[in-house]
């Protein structure tokens, strides 16, 4: 039994319970379903809305450095704090926020294993509707780390050269173009299918039925042996809008310790709309 390459990036629900309210520990909930936080959350947790707070509201992009500083500092989080992220759907957007924190150089950020659902189903864990009232603090972020984010130009090059691992974490029906987006999703594309050369490893391959991550050995067997992702090469992961891929990005980069893993957050809603981009089905 081996451990994760970076065990510090993951905390258990019991650890969170034991550390509630401790100075220097900030808990943040980020959900797909933005009503969930208001219905109830971990006591003391701040809620970030991925649609209105993590995205630039004019340009199609993540929030810029200044907006990130305002958001995070405004939530009373300073660069030295330990940030614990959790959310619904097995931490999809919590993982996206994790990626964003890392992109802007936050030192100590972690995911709560099992996310909101695990906490919800444990009888000894409390939830509240009370919102914390944090004192804003100054926050200075680092410039975005280019080693964590892939843009479409690089992806097109990989589609042509096939010199990097390309991992599509969407469902098999999205991968084969049977559907363009999961049912009920509004963000979509003009074309269905996948980027040439991509391997389809749905994001949930990495989790147990209770939403926690599979063991290091299992993950290694799945991604490195069965799927034959070559750890000597660089890797790019994508999905539809970059949230499910953040989840697998987290697994590959932090739990398995692959050296060079980027999240292509433009993902299918960018690629599937490009004129003349090569598509496989």
């Amino acid at each position, binding site marked *: 039994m081996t451990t994760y390459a970076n065990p510090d990036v993951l905390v258990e629900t019991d650890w969170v319970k034991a550390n509630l309210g401790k100075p220097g520990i900030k808990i943040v909930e980020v959900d797909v379903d933005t*009503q969930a936080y208001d219905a109830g959350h971990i006591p003391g947790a701040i809620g970030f809305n991925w649609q209105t707070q993590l995205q630039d509201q004019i340009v199609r992009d993540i929030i810029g450095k200044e907006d990130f500083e305002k958001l995070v500092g405004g939530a009373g989080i300073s660069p030295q704090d330990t940030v614990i992220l959790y959310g619904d759907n097995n931490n999809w957007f919590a993982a996206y926020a994790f990626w964003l924190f890392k992109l802007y150089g936050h030192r100590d950020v972690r995911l709560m294993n099992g996310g909101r659902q695990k906490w919800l189903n444990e009888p000894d864990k409390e939830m*509240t509707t009370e919102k914390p009232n944090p004192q804003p603090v100054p926050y200075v972020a680092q410039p975005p780390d280019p080693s964590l984010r892939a843009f479409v130009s690089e992806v097109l090059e990989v589609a042509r050269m096939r010199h990097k691992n390309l991992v599509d974490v969407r469902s098999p029906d999205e991968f084969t173009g049977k559907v363009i987006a*999961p049912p009920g*999703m509004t963000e979509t594309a003009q074309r269905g299918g996948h980027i040439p050369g991509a391997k389809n490893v749905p994001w*949930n391959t990495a989790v147990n039925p209770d939403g926690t991550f599979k063991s290091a050995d299992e993950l290694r067997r799945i991604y490195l042996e069965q799927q034959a992702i070559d750890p000597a090469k660089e890797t790019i992961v994508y999905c539809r809008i970059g949230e499910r891929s953040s989840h697998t990005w987290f697994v590959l980069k932090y739990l398995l310790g692959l050296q060079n893993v980027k999240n292509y957050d433009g993902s299918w809603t960018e690629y599937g709309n490009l004129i003349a981009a090569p598509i496989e089905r």
Partner: protein
Amino acid sequence: MNHQTRVYNSIFEMLPGEENPSPLVRINRMNPSPDFVLYAKLEWLNPFGSVKDRAAWEMLRDLEERGELGNGRGVVEPTSGNTGISLAAMSRARGYHMRAVVPNRVPLEKKVLLKIAGADLDVVSDELCPAPGAGGEGSINLAKTYAKAQRHRYALPNQYENEMNVRAHYRTTGPEIWRQTEGRITHLFVSLGTCGTVTGTSKFLRAKKPDIKVIAVQPSEGHDVPGLRNVSQLGVSKLFDPSLIDEILEIDYKLAYRRAMELFQNEGLRAGPSSGLIYEGARRIIERDKTGVGVMIFPDDIFKYTANMVRHIPSLAEGLHA
């Protein structure tokens, strides 16, 4: 209360039970075997419009008896619509507030009906990823969140885990069918959602007559039949007990809509899509078994599914506008 004259002191007296069973109506033109007697049990004639009146009432009464309701405490429930409509109407008529948490795919008619019935409505983008083991439980989780974080405001009946859901059918549906068929029933045809219907009814009837065949139908994967679950989604139904079911038939979900329409057009039965699917299962079994006395539990009627019908039977959209 008088079931002969049908004069009642309140709507609750109309709830079904052995003395006031929902009707059994025989299938004639669409029965594939002359030696098989096939009945539909019309649950849409229950006072709040579906089979879910039974579970909702049992769960609500149980909460009341345990002193869990009142003084500002109402209910919150994850629902594909019918349980919510029953619970909303019952709760409001007894003076409690009610919050329904529904997946986005629930038909518009049901969402609007919930609001008309007085429910606070949360719509959740459920079933985001059709992968088992993760996601797809958003409405249950959100309802649980309300009940956990706002305990003083919300009790959670939770039809997916509540034994009262089973007991309702053990106490009413089973005895009704036994009496209505005078013990002659050989086949029971049901669908699987929370599995309260199949578990409770089968348990009662099997105790009376162990060799009754219990046939359950399931829509094919990726289906669009509100109220039902595919095998891959049954994990959340804690009331599912395979030992009480003889056969599970997986049927192309589009047939649910097709058969529902045929039932209206040939039998005068305004059956909803889950009833259509159950009929298709019964039809297949009757072609094989040829003789017997069968009862299909038809959960609700077609009125809440007109938009779904148009989606799955596109010709219905033709000629609707001047």
